[in-house]
């Protein structure tokens, strides 16, 4: 039920809500010392926000408002923690389940719902947000991230001596995607070029209906070693480990240390998507085991131990209701895209076939005289 418990695992926040920094992990532990109470509260607030967003989107899908939903429930610590470990210049290449990472970088959540409603295929500005588009073909984005990181190095933006100028790249993917050749090729290109990149693998233990052992014979954090990419496994349900280890390796990447692989061992509490039925392939007992290790409960225990009162949690719950209402209203208000969107941005320059087909469709539609 737990993956080879023998393997080392970076954990700072225990399931009981206690923080311990073992001496051998001091290099990461020092990142925790910089955290203030406000940071801990921000982590919790955003994890709760992510959970709420997820539940709301799931409900919107069940009501027919979204074509599909892709839940990230159970992965909030891995996503919020790592998201906050990413610096202000850094670029993020998500897979398609990184709603929590999106939250940490102020992505308008409606733009994610737009995509899953079928209004567009993404459409937020990757340059401006530094949060690139969701990638649906597994592993493809890991190569894009690697190419981007190669470019960062060509631009001389690594180890400039001015931290405000440096930048690195983080690429998210899941346990299933590690089986894709693109991920192995990305490890290779990043290692050869010593590119400033962190590979962040959320091992949620299920690739739709396949267990991780159907994707790999070695622990995933070791997967990069043969390519020259060292790896670290963290407890993906520990927001502090996710934060500190990501921040450390992003800092190192910006300083020229080259690529690093982080495996965040977590669990997909929900279905793969709303089209999936996990009761067909996994035991409820396993889900319960992991529910008992819920990343939010763990952080809540820690906060309460440290004197955070009920008022804070009430405020978070209230903010969640407010967000749900806003999301519902914004989703109901989403307009269908105009017909010309189908033809726009296929090419950046004039293209006779596209122009001809768009004109044809316009005339064809007009031929019904607006009665249809």
């Amino acid at each position: 039920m737990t993956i080879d418990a023998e393997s080392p695992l970076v954990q700072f926040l225990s399931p009981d809500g206690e923080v311990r920094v073992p001496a051998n992990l001091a290099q990461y532990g020092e990142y925790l010392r910089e955290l203030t109470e406000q940071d801990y509260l921000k982590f919790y607030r955003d994890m709760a926000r992510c959970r709420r967003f997820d539940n709301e989107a799931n409900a919107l899908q069940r009501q027919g408002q979204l074509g599909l939903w892709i839940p990230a429930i159970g992965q909030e610590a891995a996503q919020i923690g790592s998201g906050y470990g990413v610096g202000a210049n850094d670029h993020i290449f998500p897979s398609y389940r990184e709603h929590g990472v999106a939250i940490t970088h102020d992505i308008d959540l409606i733009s994610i719902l737009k995509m899953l409603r079928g209004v567009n295929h993404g459409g937020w500005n990757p340059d401006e947000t530094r949060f690139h588009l969701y990638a649906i073909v597994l592993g493809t984005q890991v190569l894009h991230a690697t190419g981007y990181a190669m470019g960062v190095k060509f631009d001389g933006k690594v180890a400039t001596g001015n931290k405000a100028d440096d930048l690195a790249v983080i690429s998210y993917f899941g346990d299933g995607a590690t089986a894709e050749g693109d991920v192995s090729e990305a490890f290779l290109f990043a290692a050869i070029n010593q590119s400033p990149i962190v590979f962040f693998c959320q091992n949620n233990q299920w690739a739709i209906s396949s267990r991780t052992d159907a994707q790999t014979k070695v622990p995933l954090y070791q997967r990069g070693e043969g390519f020259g990419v060292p790896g670290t496994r963290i407890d993906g349900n520990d927001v502090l480990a996710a934060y500190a280890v990501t921040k450390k390796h992003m800092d190192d990447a910006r300083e020229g240390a080259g690529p690093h692989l982080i495996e965040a061992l977590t669990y997909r509490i929900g279905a793969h998507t709303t089209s999936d039925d996990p009761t067909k392939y996994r035991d409820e007992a396993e889900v319960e085991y992991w529910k008992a290790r819920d990343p939010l409960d763990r952080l809540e225990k820690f906060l309460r131990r440290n004197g955070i009162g009920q008022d804070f949690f009430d405020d978070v719950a209230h903010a969640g209701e407010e967000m749900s209402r806003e999301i519902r209203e914004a989703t109901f208000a989403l307009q269908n895209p105009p017909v010309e969107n189908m033809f726009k941005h296929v090419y950046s320059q004039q293209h006779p076939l596209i122009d001809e087909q768009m004109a044809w469709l316009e005339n064809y539609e007009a031929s019904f005289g607006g009665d249809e």
Partner: protein
Amino acid sequence: MNNIVEMPIAKAINAGLREALKNDPKTLIFGEDVAELGGVFRVTEGLHKEFGQQRVFNSPIAESGIVGTAIGLAMRGYRPVVEIQFDGFIFPAFDQITTQLAKLQNRSEGFLTMPVVIRVPYGGGIGAVEHHSESPEAYFAHTPGLRVVSPSNSNDAYWMIQQAIESTDPVLFFEPKRRYWQKGPVNLDGAPAHLHAAAVLRAGTHVTIATYGPMVPVALQAAEIAAAEGNSIEVIDIRSMSPIDFATIVESVKKTGRLVVAAEASTFVSVSSEIAARVAELAFYHLEAPVIRVGGFDVPYPAAKLEELFLPDADRILEAVDRVLAY
């Protein structure tokens, strides 16, 4: 003043690449063996030495990685020109080309552009082993979001590679490998034709032959033989397989009433098929005969000792010319 220099196609592409590297510091060249060696066909010869390791470099032998990282570099503001060593080796990159490169601009609603050029030596006639003689252009012409072109002479090679690199859309640049050492004039000061414009290479009145890439000299040879027999053939080099300049082809067909389309690629669901279908639609009342396609057979590219029978030659084109003239 025209500044005309005689050079083979491979050298013309090399000169065009050199111009692009000089004109834009964001232009990069990478791929398998493109650095010190200059590529297996020496098309990038000397560029590594001249522009250095950061502008012209070897990649691991991983075609998906080559195209996937080119996409990331384009996102970072670079203009990558990548080489796929041989036509038959492009398929490991097929996913990155068709699901990512072709679609990212559309997916991002125009926030991203993808100025990536993929150079592919293609076609047969060099006595090679399997996977070294193919014509996979139709796969890419079929994919929305890509531009697909092929030069057939030195002047086009020099200019079209530069235009492809300037394009803010991804361009598949198919290089007719058996013609790499075919010499021709390059007008270094000339105003180039539009990247996607077809060119009428020989005027004629009885039959139009539309073709591209390595088949262009074969079509011209066929026209020469036909002329001796009293048949006047118009030869069009379409130059661009996506988009296709149908206006130039249709204008010619309105004059000749007969069209033969010639290409090396297997004929079924090919660029030739598209030309035949569209010309039937656009010039139906001007056609005196059905459009006939002359191309490779619908078999895997054969072993080298059979390739002469696979590849259309002037006689195969003339047989089709006779057939359209018989109507």
